[in-house]
Structure formats: C-alpha cells, structure tokens
C-alpha cells in the first residue's frame, strides 16, 4: 500500500493485522516536504511524521519490516538531506525518485525545470557523496546504474534457474525498453479505482478499473495498447546504443506523449562511452562493491 499516511492512524490496526507492506510518501524534512500540502495549502509534514512515529512506537516490529518511505527529489531537498533525515528520524533508507517527467503541461515547463533535480547530480553535490553512495545501496543512482550494468552485461549474472540451465541468450530483451509487462510484477490500484501496472507511472496509463461492480480489465485492449506503446518507442530504441541493455520504463521515456520528444535515456555513441566510463569510475571508487553486488544483490 502506498499512502500519504494521513489516514494511517485510523486504519493502522487493520493494516498491521493484514500484514500490509506500506510505502509512505514523504520528501524529507519540513522544507523538503513543503510541496506536500492540504487543499488549503497548509503543510501536511507534521501529521505525516506523527503518523509514521505512531506506527514506530505502537508496532515497532511491523515498522521495521513493513514500513518504507518514498521520497521525491526536487529543488527543496537533496539526496544527502533525504538520507540524513530518514536515517536520523526513522532509522530507514528511503526510496528516492526524481519527479516524473511525463505529462508536463507545456505552459508550466519552466516551473517544472526549476523544480526538477537529477538524482545523480544531487548525490555528487553533497559533501558525503561517497559515504551515502555506499549506504544508499540501490537507492544511490550510481550503485543502481552499476548494478544494472552488471545485470545486463556480466556473463556471470543469471536472471533465474532457467537461464542457468539453458544458458544466456545473446539478447535477453524481447521488447524495447525495460518495461515490466502489466501484471507480471505488481499491480497498483488508485483511490479512484484505476488499476495501474505500478505506482510510479501516470494515472492516465491505467489498464483497468475497480468499482462496486468488480474488476474490469479488457486484456485484449491492454495488449493492443502496449503494442501501440512499443511501436511508438521502437524507432528511437533501434538507434540507441544502449538498446540491448536499457532497463528504462517506457512510461518514463517521454516518448509516449510527444513523438518529437527525445528519450531521456537515449544514448548515442559518446553517451555510451560515458556510461561505460561511469561504471568503471564507480568500481574504482568502490572496488569492494563488485563482490558485494555479485554475491548479494537482487534486482527488484
């Protein structure tokens, strides 16, 4: 369950009883969370933190195992701020995401650009870059990039037992991008009853609905829609140097809304070289993380 935590105290006992995994949206300290406000504009920060602390105090074991935080990076916080806040306040490592770049109103592009902050740039801006990079693990953009690199390129990394049994295919990807097939990994249902492939994509890409009459999913339509999406991105992907190993989500490429948009993950030859250099730079700075990734890391 993903929530802003405001109703968490009311339903807490039920949620604990049913062993929900809960993801609380909070963007760090009071300033960092200041974009999260009630309809009247007043900040929700205090109530969210109180709700999270209530869980921590009332159900410490549940808090430890079932509560996670999702923070959005923007111009009022940073990777270092977020890491420090959640570590100090809750003893947790947050999931950190950039602002979704799809569906931006052209009239508000400038405002969006001002708010947007890149995770990688924010990490390197901080004084404790190297320390946080290691501690954030997958939530560090450099760590996850290095993991993705090994995940797709290392001959010693196997997706599952079948790949180990039959051998790795030259090209593991059947479709462009690294988008999860709907319902293959998770399903997200919004408060208005829209069914989405995950919580990280725009609600306009819903694949079904849920209401008092039940679940309505037209699988044929979902299949056709996805084929249309793939057709839209396929041309760009075919020119990308990272096409065989890119794991980006097509809903975050920006290509679905406007065909003239350039995919944020597109790589030309130079980009590809830079990407490779970044991975080598990461392992030179953190040599011990190669063994750590190969011995322990799991893609999720």
């Amino acid at each position, binding site marked *: 369950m993903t929530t802003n935590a405001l109703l968490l105290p009311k339903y807490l006992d039920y949620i604990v009883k049913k062993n929900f995994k809960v993801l609380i949206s909070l963007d760090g300290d009071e300033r960092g969370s200041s974009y999260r406000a009630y309809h009247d504009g007043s900040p929700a920060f205090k109530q969210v933190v109180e709700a999270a602390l209530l869980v921590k105090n009332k159900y410490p074991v549940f808090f430890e195992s079932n509560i996670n935080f999702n923070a959005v990076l923007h111009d009022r916080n940073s990777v270092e701020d977020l890491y420090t806040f959640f570590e100090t306040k809750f003893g947790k490592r947050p999931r950190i995401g950039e602002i979704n770049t799809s569906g931006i109103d052209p009239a508000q592009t400038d405002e969006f650009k001002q708010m947007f902050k890149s995770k990688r740039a924010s990490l390197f801006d901080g004084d404790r870059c190297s320390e946080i990079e290691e501690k954030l693990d997958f939530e560090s953009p450099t760590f996850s990039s290095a993991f993705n690199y090994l995940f797709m390129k290392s001959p010693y990394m196997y997706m599952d*037992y*079948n790949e*180990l049994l039959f051998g790795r295919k030259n090209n593991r990807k059947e479709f462009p991008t690294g988008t999860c097939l709907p319902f293959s990994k998770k399903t997200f249902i919004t408060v208005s009853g829209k069914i989405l492939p995950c919580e990280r994509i725009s609600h306009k890409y819903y694949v079904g609905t849920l209401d008092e009459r039940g679940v309505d999913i037209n699988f044929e339509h979902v299949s056709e829609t996805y084929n249309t999406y793939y057709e839209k991105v396929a041309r760009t992907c075919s020119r990308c140097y990272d096409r065989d190993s890119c794991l980006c989500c097509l809903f975050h490429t920006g290509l679905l809304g406007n065909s003239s948009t350039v995919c944020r993950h597109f790589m030309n030859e130079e980009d590809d070289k830079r990407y490779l250099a970044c991975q080598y730079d990461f392992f030179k700075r953190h040599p011990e993380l*190669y063994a750590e990734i190969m011995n322990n890391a799991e893609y999720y």
Partner: protein
Amino acid sequence: MDENNENFRWLYISPDVYVHESAGGQLLLYHTVSGKHMVTSDPELTQIAGEVYEPKNLGVIECRLHDHTSIDFKKAVQEGFIKTLPYKDRKLKPINFLPILNLQNDFSRYENPDDIAHLGRNVCRFLTELNIYLSYENKRTNTEKRDFRNKVSRQILLPEYKNSRLHLHLPDIENVLLQATHSGIKRINLISGNNFFNPINHDHFVKLLANFDFEYHIHAYLDDFYEILAACSGLNVTYDLYTDKFSSNGKIIDLSSPCFAGKHCHFHHLITSKEDFKCYPNFLHMNGQNESIDLIPILTGDNINFFEEHVFISMQDLLDNTVSMHAIFRNQKLNSNFFGILNIYPDKTVSTHGSPCILGNIKNSSLPELVYNELKTNTSWRKTRDLTGCKNCHFCFLCPPISKYEIVSGVYNMCAVSNKTHSK
C-alpha cells in the same frame, strides 16, 4: 612501493579461470577455455589467489615478478592462469571482473521456503519436461526378466513390471496437457507398458495428443512396438525403443525392417557387462546406414566393476571435455539431469525426475502446486554435488551432476577423479 619502478606489474587471474581452494589449503586453477588445470599447495600462489579475490582489490594486485620465484607460480603464468600487465601509475589500476556467480531469484537463499510464493503461477516456467508413465508392464514373464526390467525402470524411462492393470485415463492426460500449455514444457515423454493401449480408444488418444503442440517421445521395449504403432498411427511422435538381453528370444531383431521405415525411431540397447557389449551385434541386425544404437549401461547391483571400468568418470574424461564457466556455475546451483522434469505415474502420483519421493497427485494438485512443492523441498532439481560426499573434492562442480545411477545405488561419487572411497 616505488611507482616508477619498472619491475612492477599488474597481476591478475584470468577471468576464464575457475579457482577452488580446498579446506586443506590446496588450490585448483582450471582454465574454462583451454581445459588446462593445475593443483598446487604452493603458498606463494595460494596467497596471490587470496589477494586477487579480496573484494577491495577488484581482481588485480600490483607485484614485482622477481619476488615470485616458485615453480608453480611460473607455471601458472606460462599456462595462462595468471596474467600481468605493464605498471605505469597506481591511479591507472586496471579492474578485473572475476567470475562470481549471481543467480537472481536463488531459492537456496530464501530464509523462508514459502517466499517462493511470490512467483505465483509463473513458477511453471521452470517446468520444461514431463515423463508420463501411461501404464505398468504386466505381461507374465520369468522372475529374472521381471527383476532386471524393474531395476531398469528406476534408471531410465521404461515402465515398471507390476501385477496391476492400472493406467492413466485420457481425461487425466488431457488435464495434465492443458496445464502444461501454461508452462515451459516442450518435450513430453510417454512411457508405455503393454496394458495401456488395449483398453483405450486409439483415435481419441491420437486426437488428444495432436491437439497440443508438444514434442512427443514414446519410450517402450521393442517387444511392445507393434501394439504401440497400431495405436499411434498418424501421430507425429518419436519412438525410443529399447532392447535388452531378453528381447531377442533367440531370434535376430532386424532394425532395418520396413516396419521402422519412415518413423522417427531411436534404438537403445541395455548392457550390464562386457559380455553384453560383445554379444549385442549377434542378435541386433542393422544395415549400417540408417540405424544406430545407443548403448545404455544398467546397474544391476553386482556389476559395479563394469561401471568402474566403463562408466565412472576418470580424470582423462574430465580433461577431454573442457568445462565452461557456465557449466560450473550451473553445477553449483542445480542438477541439469533432473531440473524442470516431473514424472507422472499410472496411479496419478507425481515425483520429480531423479527422486523416489512423491510430491503429490495430479487429481488433487495442479502442476504449479507440484512445482512449488519441489522448489520448497528440493527432492532432486537442486541436488548438487556439494550436498554429497563430493563436497570436499576440487572437481565437485566440474564433474557432471548427480545421475540416476547414483540415486539408485546410493553411491554418490562414481568417479576415479580423486582418491576418495565410495560413500553412501
């Protein structure tokens, strides 16, 4: 260390080299491309391997070659196990991604076996082959033949002799095949005794199988071939036909006979001794062009010497076949003889291939449930050599995985690779 010293080199172990250190400190270096290997107790080489594999060194260390004078070190360099690069500047240290296996969704690491449940029905992608035992063999026969063939049935895909007319019914088979369409299954082996084809409607059987796009193999004794052929007419199927010392009945079996013409037939002959090996051409006739016979050794319980001489893996066998890094990794995590294969018996019970343990029943359990049971309990799919007496052997993961012979006999190291004794 003086960085300008020209004697310095970057030293690394080739990523094609599999390194295994035994509890006693002995080191195996095996080159997965050239097939060369060396076993050493040289402290210098052992120390270097340890340092190279230290995570902080990322596969490369700096060294002065003339500090390393041992014979084994020089040999390791000459044979390509250890390599060096010119040293210019410490800041320009190369990196070497060592062969460390990362298996995603590695069930052996799950603290709670029930966590496998997150795979949902998708778990059936691991199911790649079915062995369906259609019926038992219940022909009256002498005890010697019956006992021998029952031993055979525990080692290869042939039916058990039983005083039972039990057989799978067509709706049972249809139910299984329907579920199999949602799995990774490509090949289905049908193991037939003599009492399957009499009671069933042949047309219905053929139509049922033809409805599904699987690769069918029928495994049976050659004795039963004519009955099976009459029942399977028009079906696209491969016949795996087996003969043994009881098959000929004093007559010559002509494998070039027109009755086999135009059919996909594979012939197999079961042997238990050198004598069997010498004798089989006396009663199996081939014209030498279109037919070939696989010879399959069978353990009888008193022919271990024959196995030691002709079946056990020798050091030479290992060295003759280069083992890839992929095969070594595979042997560390799963048993490729058994993984992905389920056996379904005439009484509807189910086991994994390679295990006598019953996982469930096709009447009460779906294929995904049966696969779950196996992934949780590991009766055979993930039975690797490190779970046996082979675990202390350097060649544990270079050897082929545990075989049916070993399961049947309880002897888990049918090899002459190391000087270990057979262990139960």
